[in-house]
């Protein structure tokens, strides 16, 4: 019996205008369940989203206006499905290659793949370079994550995807596929300095939880330098 394939797509009002492109790319794929996790969206936002229901076979909108962080909301969404469901984590604005949904994750594995990043004046190809590189800089775009029975760390406000991927890599529960299967649109990222700082703090938290001290110290030092540089910009 084939397993249910669920796309987890969190969205909040600033990103709603990007959702149309993502739903367009998903509309070309059969047999997937698209779960939109709306956070602090108005009734008119929800009504505007419902027009796309006829374009996607299995389309569900859940609404959460609580103060829960994204990790909590993602885990809550996952818990409503059976244990052998396969999840594909993406964002509003992402474009998905049709072949992504042929990839199936099993036995607590996290599967990732290359990603294309779209900036205002260029594209960048982001490729995974191994654990050591991950300790300096994250080369895994969360829109490339495919997993089954894995939960996000709810203690992390941002960078929950980095923490998840690091824990999988360390426990040898990670496989990377050398194909570009997602585009992430960063032409108008809206990523504030505050959010970037929170993201770095999440990264530091994750490393402290997961890494032995001898490895953690130099890696986290780099993050503290990045944090200081960010604070200097404020």
């Amino acid at each position: 019996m084939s397993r249910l394939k669920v796309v987890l797509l969190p969205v909040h009002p600033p990103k709603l205008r990007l959702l149309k492109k993502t739903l367009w790319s998903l509309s070309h794929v059969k047999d997937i369940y698209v779960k939109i996790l709306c956070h602090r969206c108005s009734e008119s936002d929800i009504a505007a989203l419902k027009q796309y229901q006829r374009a996607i076979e299995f389309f569900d909108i859940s609404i959460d206006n609580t103060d829960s962080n994204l990790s909590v909301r993602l885990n809550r969404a996952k818990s409503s499905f059976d244990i052998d469901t396969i999840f594909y984590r993406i964002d509003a604005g992402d474009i998905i290659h049709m072949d992504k949904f042929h990839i199936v994750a099993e036995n607590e594995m996290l599967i990732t793949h290359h990603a294309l990043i779209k900036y205002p004046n260029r594209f960048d190809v982001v490729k995974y370079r191994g654990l050591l590189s991950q300790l300096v800089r994250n080369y895994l775009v969360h829109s490339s994550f495919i997993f089954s029975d894995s939960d996000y760390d709810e203690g992390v406000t941002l960078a929950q995807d980095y923490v998840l991927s690091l824990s999988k890599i360390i426990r040898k529960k990670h496989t990377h596929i050398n194909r570009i299967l997602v585009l992430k649109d960063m032409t108008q990222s809206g990523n504030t300095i505050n959010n970037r700082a929170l993201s770095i703090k999440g990264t530091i938290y994750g490393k402290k939880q997961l890494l032995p001290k001898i490895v953690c110290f130099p890696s986290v030092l780099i993050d503290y330098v990045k944090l200081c540089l960010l604070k200097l910009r404020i």
Partner: protein
Amino acid sequence: MFVEIKDLDFSEDRFTLNGLPISGNLESLYINLYRSVLHRHFDVVRDIELEKIDQNVSEYTRFHLLPLLLDSGVQSEKALTFLEIDEEKIKSALSDYSRENMWYTSNIHMGSLAAVSILKRDNLNSLALQLIQELDSKSFTSTKWKYKGSINRIAAFYHYVPFIDTHNVEITLRTKEVLFTDLKGLQNTLGSFCSPNGFSCMELDSVVVAAYLKKFGFDTEDLLKNKLFNHLSNFDNGWPLYGLSSSRMNDIKEIFSSSVFIQDKLWNLKKIFVDIRKQQFDNGHAELVSEAHDKTLMSNYFGLVTYMQLAQALGIVEKNNLEVFNSYGLSYVVA
């Protein structure tokens, strides 16, 4: 639903969003035709007013305009009369042609084969079939060295697809194999068919040829899926004439490591070092000007047809309610 006319069209007399209003007769005709065919794909019919064509318009342009006029819904007799294309000119185009640059010649042939299709005369049909047989024996390859590569061949063959596919004209296995090899060599990591990241005309040509080859059992599925991903990635309230690249260094590495002919490598190198830095003139017309990464009426029109062909070839149920119609030219979608 996902793509609408308002994403692709500009105000009445402009070729690009921020371009100057067009005033030239021929340029105005082109933008009216591009607009009209674009709208027809959304099932909106626009009238085309035809004033007398300027006498200095070349034979190339007249034959280039014919399929556009027909696809806009202009009656065949009216179109032929307006363009002053008669049987003698059609016969001349089909029998007296140069194979030096097959892309150039194929544009004239697309128009003359459109005329053959609508006139339905036995003598012209025979000439058309004879032409295609001759070109097929040479695999639609140009004779001049600089035009002997894959890009020129794919771009040339594309212009014969509407006639070949509509009338089930047989093309040899050898030619199809050559074209398949061309396509596989041309597609880059980003999924487009020329540097830096696609050129509207070439993307349409390649996708239609890939769809045509798929009908004969050639496995172009991956090529088409990669291009669909690339095509959606390049869409941003329209499709640009040239897509954005990753980096000049990556482009160069990709060009040199590809399996295409030296002519194609040189063509692509010129694209990334020279062409994308210059102003672009659609079909050489001074007023149909744009920058390399602009969205133009032409690039949006070609982008739309490229998308429709991808959807058709990949068996995707089309959710935008776009209209495919019997086309004699650039709107042709292989079923």
